[in-house]
């Protein structure tokens, strides 16, 4: 065996360097995150007041508040959820409980949802404009926007619900069947309650996605900042309001900051609750009733 020497010092130096780089990257990312939040708080907090939440925007949004915009946002979200939830959860139950994992029908549905998940939001906007606004004649309305968002939410709602149902231990199904319970009763009384945290987490993630969305709403729910009278009226979503104020309204920065702060705080809250639910679920698969 030839004489070899082991050199230790070089690897120590290199390890140090790599560690330094990793820490630097982490610092940069955390720094930017804090920078963004601090910027939003600094720019927006002075403009926040109770009136800001309830007043109508005046002077193209430079003055006044975001009352009607919050209402439109909530209505768009409501339409999206009312349409998407039943469809998504029905699909998830079918995929998780009724069709074998390898069946052709299941594969097709799953694949189509997977593709749908990758579609860019601007393309949803194009589709929503062509189908809901023009083909179905709904025009620029809260209904068009909500339906477009419903399409967008389907994949995330289905995948979270399906994963939640699959995490329910198999022996619940076996025991329920051994007790002669019908599949409907098993589903309603056992499986859905057991999967409830996952369903809720998915729901919150979906809400977060929908509230954050801008591009898909540009040509579907429209720009009108008035208080909507019905679902067929155009309504401006909060995200779109921020976009419009910052791009098209000179001097709209202060209300834009405030609106952005409202949106980010809302989304952070939604995401934190969703995370809590999801982690709780991982730690303790099933909650004792």
């Amino acid at each position: 065996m030839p004489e070899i020497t082991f050199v230790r010092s070089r690897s120590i130096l290199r390890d140090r360097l790599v560690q330094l780089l990793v820490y630097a990257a982490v610092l940069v990312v955390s720094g930017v995150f804090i920078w963004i939040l601090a910027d939003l708080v600094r720019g927006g907090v002075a403009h926040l007041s109770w009136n800001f939440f309830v007043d109508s925007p005046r002077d193209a949004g430079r003055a006044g508040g975001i009352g009607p915009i919050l209402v439109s946002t909530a209505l768009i979200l409501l339409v999206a959820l009312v349409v998407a939830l039943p469809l998504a959860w029905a699909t998830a139950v079918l995929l998780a409980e009724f069709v074998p994992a390898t069946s052709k029908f299941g594969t097709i549905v799953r694949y189509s949802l997977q593709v749908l998940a990758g579609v860019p939001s601007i393309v949803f906007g194009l589709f929503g404009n062509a189908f809901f606004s023009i083909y179905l004649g709904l025009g620029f309305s809260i209904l068009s926007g909500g339906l477009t968002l419903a399409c967008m939410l389907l994949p995330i709602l289905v995948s979270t619900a399906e994963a939640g149902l699959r995490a329910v231990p198999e022996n619940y199904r076996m025991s329920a069947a051994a007790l002669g319970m019908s599949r409907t009763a098993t589903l309603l009384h056992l499986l859905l309650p057991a999967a409830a945290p996952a369903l809720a987490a998915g729901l919150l993630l979906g809400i977060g996605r929908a509230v954050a969305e801008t591009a898909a709403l540009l040509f579907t729910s429209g720009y009108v900042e008035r208080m909507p009278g019905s679902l067929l009226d155009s309504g401006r979503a909060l995200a779109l309001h921020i976009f419009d104020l910052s791009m098209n309204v000179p001097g709209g920065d202060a209300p834009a900051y405030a609106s952005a702060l409202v949106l980010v705080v809302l989304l952070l809250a939604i995401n934190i609750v969703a995370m809590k639910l999801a982690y709780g679920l991982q730690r303790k698969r099933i909650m004792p009733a």
Partner: protein
Amino acid sequence: MNTHDIEEIQRSVEKQHTFTLGPLQTGPACCDPQPIVQVKNFSLHYDNKTALDKVTLDIYRGCITALIGPSGCGKTSFLSAINRLTDLIPNCKVVGHIQVDGVDIYQSACDVQVLRQQIGMVFQKPTPFPLSIRRNIELPLREHGVTKRAEVEAVSEQVLRDVGLWHEVHDRLDSAALSLSGGQQQRLCIARALALKPKILLMDEPCSALDPIASGVVEDLIVGLQGRYTIVIVTHNLAQARRIANYAAFFWVKERAGHLIEFGHCRDIFETPVHQLTAAYVSGARG
């Protein structure tokens, strides 16, 4: 669980006269064997693997029949074939006949839910639902049309008494079933099955996931059920089979498929086995 509790449980289990739910028409005990389940040339396949090959066997009313044999010899498959739980396993195919009270259960006319109400099952791992203790018993009862509150409560109390759980849980029926100890959970599962007034109880190693003391309690309970219910029990514990069973069926894997090697009175199987595989297995030489 302290020792006082354990004595209490054992005492309540021993009080067999407290059973009121066992159907009185279970018929004569084992001195006069009368088949309730008749298995004829029954085979079971998963995909292209054969789990059971041409099993023919009678299970007698009111008796305890133990299914013994090494792992993977098809005992559990056989058990779940009797209440058609095999329906839930994808790609599972059955050939042959199983008759329960003279009715072929694999005919399309057979209502699976009624069948499973009449044939209770207890699994190896205690499987209470993530609901309250009360709801665990109530849910299957309601499913089978027992909806009157008084009725449900009476039945719940009775079955909980039958399994010796009543005095342990009567003051916390609304707490989570999953908060019970392993042995208590298993007795709750037995109570839940008994609530449906089954004719037959299928038990898949009901003691093997429990600690020795809880296991003893459950075993005594099973002995107490003898005569009132027909019991088919899978067990790896030969001593247990010998202690509690009237009949024993010995399964063995031959050519990658489960076969029934020998069936007979429990004592005969253990003391004068006909087949040399049986002799080797029960003496601990093989398996």
